[in-house]
Structure formats: structure tokens, C-alpha cells
């Protein structure tokens, strides 16, 4: 089952805690899918009570903060209405409208501008101010570091693009809605309990313009048969004319309330719904970046690329012993009068060694033919026989058998282990094994020598 956005946010919060502090230890368990594995990790972290509250803290704070802001805004709206209508028995309709809706309209236009026109960077001016403020609040409020990490992550996801602008829109419209709702209620109560005369007046605009403006403003209200003042009533309300009838007062009162509804509350409500929906849609589109090193490591934990099996056929003989090592000597350590035979030496090494010895290497034993040739040399030889082997290559049973077959009785044998300069690192390790082999072949320990060729010594 795929993850819903709430789970994804919690997973990201957990990631933030795990990456920035070592307080959380989660024992992973097998899961049918990677998503299930991640979900399970969140559940496991929540088993530790302090972490459950850490993951939910930011959301809780946000709700409280928003509720508080809305309450304050509602009260401010009421206060604004009371301020606008207090003191006089006669209200200038357009001045009241300007006070109640003018700045709402300006702020609405700015929101539209930031959201739909200044798309690049989409919401950064707003986010760049909101984010540090809220981060600072989180720092003050959260006692533990991990709570701060989790809360900041929640906030970051909510505010980051592309959902950030809708989230901010939601918050802004909620506050403005509360403000306008507070103002509407207050205005309704004031108009229900007190009697006002409504007038309008202008120095610059003429009568026709005002009539036209009122007609335009009344249009949506007329559609649903909301009571609005007629042209004659607008004319009759001009400042300095006759006293107002109760019907005219009622028409203006309805007009004022209607304007607040149609040009204040309804657009804000529509914008709020839109932001709410788009925020939810964007949040649902929010995805975890499985290419990120953190998730890649978790994926490995969930499903390793490889698994170590077990020993299918155990060793029944145990490891051989290792003898002591010896220091390297030059080729001059070998007897000068001797028969030199290579045993599975690389050709280059044979050539190099031959040039440094008093007598060249007679044959390099690599197959049956060379074995026969070597045996013939050995049988006819009266001097010591020196087997030259590659000290970088460890001996094996095959080499042992080969050497045994080359060692008829009655001769003196040496084992010269030549270090190949190209693979120097290995030689010291394998020399001990050659010493073991020499023992098994009954070659005297002092006749088993580790040699360094001249070329190598110059390296």
C-alpha cells in the first residue's frame, strides 16, 4: 500500500531527527515493500512516547497559532466596525465600505500578484519572512533538539514550493475571513440595534458617477434579489438632502451588508477553498526522494543487494602452521657451483636471474617435457641443485609433488625463493609457506633462502 502524505511527512521528520541527532534507535524488521518498511519505522519510533509527541508537535502548534490568530482577527474586525460607525448617527456609505473592504481588496490584489503573476520565485518573498519567524518560534517552544528538527521539517514541507504558496494562502485567507466575519457580525448587530442615516458625498466625482458605481456594486446582489437602493434612492441619499425614510435606511443597510458579503467574505472564502484544495493536492503529490543517500541506505537495510549464505562444505583439515620469516639475501647467497633450475617461474624472471648468476638457469620446469629435461640434468649433475621458485606465489600441493618428483636421493638441494619486484608485497607472506615446503622436502633450513634480484634492489 502506498504512503499517504501524512505518512510521508512523518518519514521526513524521522529522517531529519536521525540525520541530525543520534537519539533514536530503530530496530528494522522485514517488510513486504519499502513503503511498508518506512511506515513500520515510523510506528516503531512512535512507541517511544517522546518521539510521538515530537512528530505531532508542529502541527499542534500550528493549529493553536492559527486559531489564536483567527480569534484576534475576528475581534479586530469587530473593533474596526465599531470604530467606523461610532460617534455619528449618519454614515457615509462609501467611506464605511472603504474602511471595511479597501485594505482587504489591496491585500487580496497583492496575494493574487504573488501567487499568479510573480511566479519566479513562486513564494519566496513570503516564505523567506515566514520561515525564519516560525523557525525562531519553534526554537523557543521546543525543548528537545529532536522536536525542533521534526517541527522544522514539517514547516519546511508545508512552506516549500510548490505547495508553500497555497499553504500561506490558506493561513492568510483564514485570518482575513475571521476579520471579515467579525466585521460582518458586528455590523449586523449594530445595524439591528441602532438606527443610522446613510449618506454619500463627493467633491470631485459627479452624481452620475456615484449612481453608476452603486449600480455596478449592486449587480451581483440584484441577481439573487438582495435588496439594494434604487437610482432614485441613491439620488435621495446625497448629502444635504431630505431626511431618510425607513425603507431607504433598510436598503442601504442591506447594501452595506451585501457588499461585505459579496466583495469581502465570498471572494475570501472562495480563495480559501481554492488554497485549501490546491494545498491538499500538492501535498498529495509530495514525494520522497528515494535517490537521496538516506533512503538509499534504508533501502539497502530493507533489501540488501546480496546476502551471505553459509558454509556448504567445511574444511576438515585446519589451517597449516606458519614458520618464522627470514631476512632477504642477494643471489650471491646461493652456492656458486650449482645446477640452477627454475620451477614455474615467469620467463622474465628466468632471464633476469640468469644474467645475475655465475651459471644460467638450465631449464624452467613448467610442463612434462621440461620436467623430464630437468630430471636428466639433475641425474647427471655432481654439484648442488638449486630450485628457484617465485617467492610471490605461494606453494601448493601440486608444486610440492612436482619438487618431490625432481629430487632423487643422494644430492644436495637448495630452495631459492626469488622475490619478483612487480609484486613485492606478497613475497614476505609466502616465504614462510615455502619454508614449510622445504621442511617437508627435507631441505635444510639454511638452504631455503629468500632472495632479492639486483634489478629489484635498485627499485
Amino acid at each position: 500500500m502506498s504512503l499517504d502524505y501524512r505518512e510521508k511527512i512523518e518519514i521526513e521528520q524521522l529522517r531529519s531527527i536521525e540525520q541530525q541527532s543520534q537519539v533514536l534507535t530503530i530496530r528494522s524488521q522485514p517488510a513486504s515493500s519499502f513503503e511498508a518498511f518506512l511506515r513500520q519505522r515510523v510506528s516503531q519510533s512512535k512507541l517511544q512516547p517522546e518521539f510521538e509527541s515530537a512528530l505531532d508537535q508542529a502541527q499542534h502548534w500550528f493549529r493553536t497559532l492559527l486559531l489564536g490568530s483567527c480569534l484576534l482577527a475576528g475581534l479586530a474586525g469587530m473593533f474596526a466596525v465599531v470604530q467606523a460607525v461610532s460617534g455619528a448617527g449618519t454614515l457615509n456609505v462609501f467611506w464605511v465600505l472603504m474602511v471595511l473592504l479597501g485594505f482587504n481588496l489591496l491585500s487580496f490584489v497583492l496575494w493574487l500578484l504573488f501567487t499568479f503573476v510573480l511566479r519566479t520565485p513562486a513564494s519566496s518573498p513570503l516564505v523567506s519572512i515566514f520561515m525564519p519567524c516560525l523557525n525562531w518560534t519553534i526554537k523557543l517552544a521546543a525543548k528537545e533538539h529532536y522536536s525542533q528538527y521534526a517541527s522544522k521539517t514539517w514547516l519546511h514541507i508545508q512552506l516549500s514550493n510548490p505547495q508553500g504558496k497555497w499553504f500561506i494562502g490558506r493561513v492568510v485567507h483564514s485570518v482575513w475571513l475571521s476579520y471579515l466575519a467579525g466585521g460582518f457580525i458586528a455590523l449586523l448587530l449594530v445595524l439591528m440595534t441602532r438606527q443610522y442615516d446613510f449618506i454619500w458625498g463627493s467633491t470631485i466625482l459627479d452624481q452620475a458617477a456615484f449612481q453608476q458605481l452603486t449600480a455596478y456594486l449592486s449587480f451581483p446582489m440584484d441577481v439573487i434579489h438582495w435588496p439594494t437602493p434604487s437610482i432614485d434612492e441613491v439620488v435621495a441619499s446625497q448629502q444635504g438632502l431630505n431626511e431618510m425614510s425607513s425603507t431607504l435606511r433598510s436598503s442601504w443597510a442591506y447594501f452595506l451588508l451585501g457588499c461585505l458579503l459579496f466583495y469581502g467574505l465570498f471572494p475570501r472564502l472562495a480563495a480559501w477553498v481554492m488554497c485549501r484544495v490546491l494545498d491538499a493536492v500538492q501535498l498529495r503529490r509530495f514525494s520522497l526522494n528515494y535517490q537521496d543517500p538516506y533512503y538509499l541506505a534504508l533501502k539497502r537495510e530493507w533489501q540488501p543487494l546480496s546476502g551471505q549464505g553459509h558454509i556448504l562444505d567445511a574444511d576438515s583439515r585446519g589451517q597449516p602452521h606458519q614458520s618464522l620469516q627470514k631476512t632477504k639475501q642477494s643471489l650471491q647467497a646461493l652456492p656458486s657451483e650449482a645446477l640452477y633450475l627454475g620451477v614455474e617461474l615467469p620467463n622474465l624472471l628466468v632471464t633476469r636471474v640468469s644474467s645475475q648468476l655465475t651459471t644460467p638457469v638450465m631449464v624452467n620446469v613448467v610442463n612434462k617435457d621440461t620436467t623430464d629435461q630437468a630430471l636428466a640434468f639433475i641425474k647427471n649433475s655432481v654439484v648442488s641443485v638449486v630450485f628457484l621458485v617465485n617467492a610471490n606465489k605461494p606453494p601448493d600441493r601440486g608444486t610440492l609433488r612436482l619438487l618431490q618428483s625432481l629430487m632423487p636421493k643422494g644430492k644436495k638441494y637448495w630452495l631459492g625463493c626469488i622475490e619478483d619486484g612487480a609484486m613485492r608485497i606478497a613475497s614476505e607472506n609466502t616465504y614462510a609457506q615455502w619454508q614449510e615446503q622445504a621442511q617437508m622436502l627435507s631441505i635444510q633450513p639454511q638452504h631455503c633462502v629468500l632472495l632479492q634480484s639486483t634489478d629489484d634492489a635498485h627499485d
Partner: protein
Amino acid sequence: MTNKQISLPIILSVVGHTNTGKTSLVRTLMRNCDFGEIDNRAGTTRHVESAQIFLGDKAFLELRDTPGLEDSVALAERLQALTSAHLSGRDTLLTFVKDSANKKEFDQELKVLNQILISDIILYVIDCREPVLEKYLFELRCLSMAAKPIIPVLNFIEKSGNHKTEWRKTLADFNFHSLVEFDTVAFSFDAEKRLYRKFQTVLEPYYALLETFIQQREEDWLALRHACIQCSSEFMLAVSKIQVTVDTTTADKNAEVEASARLQNTVRVKEKEQLGRILQLLQFSADDIQYANVPIKDGRWTLDLFAPEALKKFGIDTASAAATGAAIGVGVDVMLAGLSLGTATLAGAILGSSWSTGKRFGKQLLARYRGQYVIGLDQPTITLLLARQAHLLDALFHRGHAAQQQLMLGDDKVTKLDYSEPLQVLKKVQNLAVSDDEELEADITQVLNNWFTTVTSA
């Protein structure tokens, strides 16, 4: 293709002479440096050990690491003695492994033969540093008797003076044309892919499954590479942002030295942490690397408040923040029922500009006010860090899990790469003292990612 033909996992016997790198091959394919034991003594592996490579959550390949064939000449002679007209090569092997009399002399070889008889593919590992000897040809003859596909794997091909050509020729003489070059120490994913492609040619019923497997391995490898590169880019971004304040107002003459030391330590700690992350991702151990400290020499680069890009960015941000400030100011005006007559709008615009300035350059301005200054990393150090990261990534991407030689991460690795692009963006980070500008950071990370990708795939 029927289900009966396909059974998973595909069993691969990894065989060869002693010390040719059989366990190394398994380690490298598994990306696990803990599998088995690697040593230079003959017959380090004296048992048969299995390891699985997964496709999804199922074991897809089972690699069976076997002991080395130590005495193939004697083995071949014994098998030759058993061969008769009515026995096939496979039957000869079966007769040989059933005979308990052979247990003592050919204990290791029997373990190998037992495995090859039940395997789907035999991987014959060859140490190309070794010349072609007769005993190796005997090994191939013995293995061929199992009547299973054999894929020779030429190992240690990156070593100078290897006998690769000689081996290729000999194998061709023996009709082994489907071989693969795969150095277990100098890893290449392409070589690994070629190895799997060989499996496709010899195991036709598994063709489609192997294709899926290859794709998954490739995706995993690319994702891993990307994650490592991302780590390096984030690290470079983080160290470029480090700022340390030097207090020149106090009588302490060592203030600058201390600040510089603090800066150096912070960078070193971060680099070590970064190293740990990369090693963990690629499943290497800390022993794989020998770390030498970053030689941050003078370590000082006084941040320039008036760098052209800083001023440019400053201007742009001031304008946008002023607009935001105005929006907030309007809110305040409304709360006051418009009675403030727009004063808050103006105040908001000023506040917005100040906020932006403070956020970008607050630390530096405050430091200047207090008679201090801020230092960050100098360009040579950043270049060196970039070079070391590039070297680290490149070396680890081409390191087999069997490699025994430690990788040196020293200060002598400023190779001839073109650092202009990453240096340019990192200098921007330093000049702007970026803290929360995520979009800019994402852009810079992308530039760094591209650069690391280019230099590590070269």
C-alpha cells in the same frame, strides 16, 4: 520457456587455481568486503561458502566460493585412469567423487568437483599475472568433464606485465571463446555487466530474467553513484558556508590563529564525516582509506561584502522583500481599521528591506560593528577539497571490494581538472553567505553534481 527449465537461484561455482582471486570475485560482485577470507597464502579458502545476489527480495544468483585446485596434474592423471569408452566425462567425475579413497589426497579438489556437478555455470578465475602453465590446462580439462558452461574470468588485468594476451590465445585454442575480463581490484561496472551478459549467452532460458537483473543492478549502481555525488556536493556546499568570526578588539594576539584553527578543525571533522558517509554507502570499511588532514594553509579568505554578484543579489532581494513588507504592512493597517492611513505599509517596506539585508549580511555587518571580521575558506583550500572529493569518488567507484591496498586521501591529489565552474558557484555561496535560499542552494548543488559526474566518469 517452461517453468521447469527455470529454477532460481542460478548456481555459479567460482573455481580456479589457488590465489587467483575467487573469493575476491565474490566479494566484488556482492559489494561486501567481509565475505570469506583473503590472504596470499595458498589455499586461504578451504571450504565451500555460498553468497546470494538478489533480484528484488529473491536470491537470483548463488555464488559458491570453492577452494583452489592445487594439484590438477595428479587429479587429471587419476581421472584419466578412470576414463573408459562407456563412461562420459561427467560420469567419470561422478565415479571419482563417490570413491571415498580419493578423500585424503584430493580433499580440496573433491569439494570443487562436487560443486561444479550441481552448478549452472562455472566461473573459472585466472590470475593474469601468472604465465600459462600446463597445470592450468589440466584444470580446464578436469572442469570441462562436468559438461557445464565454463566462463573464464581474467583477473588482475590492470597489473603491468600481465599475460592476458597469452591467456586469451590459449583459451581460444581450448575453444573457450566466451570469456570476460574482470579485475576484482580495479572494479568496473561495465565489466560486471559484460559478465552477466555472458550468462545470458550460456543460459538461454534465463535470458529475460537476466536482462531484468542486469537492469536492476545498473539502476542500483547509478543510484549509488548519484547518492555519493550528492553527498560530496552537499559537503562542499556546507564547508563553503562555514564562517568564523575573528575578534580583533581583544588584547589576545592569538585570536586570528585560534579562529583559523577552529575553522580548520570544523572542516576536517566535516570531511571525515563525509568520508564515513561515502564509505558506508559503498559498503567499504574505514580501513580502506588512509586519511591525511586537509592542509588548510593560511586558511583565510575575507568575505567581500561588495562583490558584484553580492550587490546584484542584494538589489534583487531588497526589491522583493520590500514588496513582502508592504503586504504585511497592509495587514497591520487593516487590523487598525485603516486608521493608520497606510503608515504601516511604508514601515513594512522598510522592515522588509532590512530583514533581507540582515539575513544575508547580518553576521558580517554585526562583526564589523563590533570591530571583528569573518573568515571562511580560501580558494586553494576549496580547490583542494574539491580535488579530494573527486579523487575519493573516482577511486571508490573503481575499487573492488577485494582490494587490500589502502586508498590514500592525501593532499597531493590536486589533479589537472577544470575547477572553474564549481569554484565560481562556491564563491557565490561565500559572497552571499547563503543561509536559507533553498532555490539557490539547489541550483548550486546541481552544478556541483554535474561537475562531479563529469570528472568521475572521465
